[in-house]
């Protein structure tokens, strides 16, 4: 019985997106695709224990889902009308050779991550249609009521239909922007899961990092030539590698300089480094690296050091200098200043950080960074005030605990 359960779980992970994407192409209707896929998997749960696991589970599921889809249309007695009123428009022109694998899952991903949909809608739709998470799971993961999440997904599908968002590979010209949109969705899912780590965190939320990595791997398999996809995967792996070292038993956040590096996952780091090396080689050959690749490279420098004191800070700074050109966000400037502190001293860094006050005054990490620099300069009173501001603004209890400890350690 356990073997069958394992087979079904595996089939769900491996086949859900493929089945949904195939049904979407066939019926042009996301609701129908979702329902027919769910019914097919439910049938598998009911039948495989008695009949045995089929030799080709994917084919069995696709065939069964197709039949369920047709049955639904017949039952609703609106087959002809549904065909005319297909939710999605298709483009039958052959896809341009853009280093992408011609796969319906890719079309599905691009549709769910379309820029005309609000970010939260893209996230919800992608997790449901591509990830196969239930509406309840997605609602719990993002801390909203199930009915709210259900409505969000329903409205997103309605917009796709009403506004005619097409089920199609973007053109070569549009591809970088559209891929960027997909990666933003996946990165958001990852960060949501990463921030949820710690004792007492809902496992569904913590699982988001694994889900984000899984979906990014899928996108990488479908877009093997895309540097930013590789970069994001590397960044996620190198970040995830440090997860267990990041939270203490008491639920306090442990910062990079204090982490037990022996607790880092060597397999994830090795894979992350491999991807970064691949992207560095591409950069050396002339490809301009995007922000995820550079962030991953920074992560690779950090995870190459056996001890915080071995960190190659000049390399980190050089990468931040590159990153600032690609992404002029003040948060990047803030993190760059931390590298400056290691090379030129905390006073130089503090001057830079103070210059960012107007933009980052509401951001807890701004005050935390200031507090740290002030502490190192021996300005305990000012450091204490800065820690207070950071604690006020920090939402994550793990971070609050760490900041409180640092503040209380001031003389």
């Amino acid at each position, binding site marked *: 019985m356990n073997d069958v359960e394992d087979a079904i779980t595996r089939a769900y992970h491996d086949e859900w997106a493929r089945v949904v994407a195939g049904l979407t192409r066939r019926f042009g209707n996301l609701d129908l695709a979702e329902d027919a896929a769910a019914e097919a998997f439910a049938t598998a749960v009911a039948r495989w224990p008695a009949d045995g696991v089929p030799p080709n589970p994917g084919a069995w599921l696709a065939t069964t889902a197709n039949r369920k889809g047709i049955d639904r249309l017949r039952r609703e007695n609106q087959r002809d009308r549904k065909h005319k009123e297909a939710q999605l*428009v298709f*483009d039958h022109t052959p896809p341009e050779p853009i280093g992408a694998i011609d796969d319906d899952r890719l079309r599905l991903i691009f549709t769910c991550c*379309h*820029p*005309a949909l609000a970010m939260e809608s893209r996230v919800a739709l992608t997790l449901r249609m591509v990830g196969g998470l239930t509406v309840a799971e997605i609602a719990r993961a993002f801390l909203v009521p199930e009915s709210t999440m259900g409505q969000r997904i329903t409205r997103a599908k309605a917009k796709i239909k*009403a*506004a*005619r*968002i*097409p089920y*199609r590979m*973007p053109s070569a010209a*549009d591809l970088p922007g559209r891929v960027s949109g997909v990666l933003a969705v996946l990165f958001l899912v990852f960060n949501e899961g990463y921030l949820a780590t710690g004792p007492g965190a809902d496992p569904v939320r913590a699982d988001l990092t694994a889900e984000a990595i899984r979906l990014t791997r899928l996108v990488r398999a479908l877009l093997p030539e895309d540097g930013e996809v590789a970069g994001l995967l590397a960044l996620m792996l190198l970040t995830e590698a440090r997860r267990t070292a990041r939270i203490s038993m008491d639920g306090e956040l442990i910062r990079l300089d204090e982490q037990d590096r022996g607790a880092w996952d060597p397999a994830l780091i090795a894979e992350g480094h491999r991807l970064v090396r691949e992207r560095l080689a591409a950069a050396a050959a002339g490809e301009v690296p995007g922000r995820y690749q550079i962030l991953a490279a920074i992560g690779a420098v950090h995870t190459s050091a056996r001890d915080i004191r071995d960190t190659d800070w000049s390399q980190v700074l050089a990468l931040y200098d590159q990153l600032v050109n690609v992404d002029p966000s003040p948060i990047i400037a803030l993190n760059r200043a931390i590298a400056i502190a290691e090379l030129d001293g905390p006073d130089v860094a503090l001057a830079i950080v103070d210059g960012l006050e107007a933009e980052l005054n509401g951001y807890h990490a701004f005050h935390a960074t200031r507090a740290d620099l002030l502490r190192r300069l021996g300005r305990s009173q000012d450091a204490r005030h800065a820690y207070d501001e950071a604690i006020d603004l920090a939402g994550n209890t793990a971070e609050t605990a760490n900041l409180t400890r640092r503040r209380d350690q001031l003389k």
Partner: protein
Amino acid sequence: MQYLVSVIDDMSNPGKTDRRPAISEFNERLIADGYWVFAGGLANPDAATVIDNRGEQSVFSDGPFLESKEYLGGVWVWEAPDLDVALALAAEASKICDRKIEVRPFA
């Protein structure tokens, strides 16, 4: 599939006023490519009148139905096969008109 494409004027941040030649040229391209169904620039919202005849008597109000800093400056109707095509054209239109553009499908 037809889309209503609205040009959004903003009283607090008005766009340039020298866009007509570029807009005319854009319209000619839309017509040549088969997207153009209708186009019209709108008079100032002050020139609008609202009529409410849902009750006993017809009530007239001077001015637009919505008082706001942002208002409709002009409208197009375009015929496009899908939203991606409409949005690509709208991106051009926004640059050419120096204004925000709303793309809304007809039901």
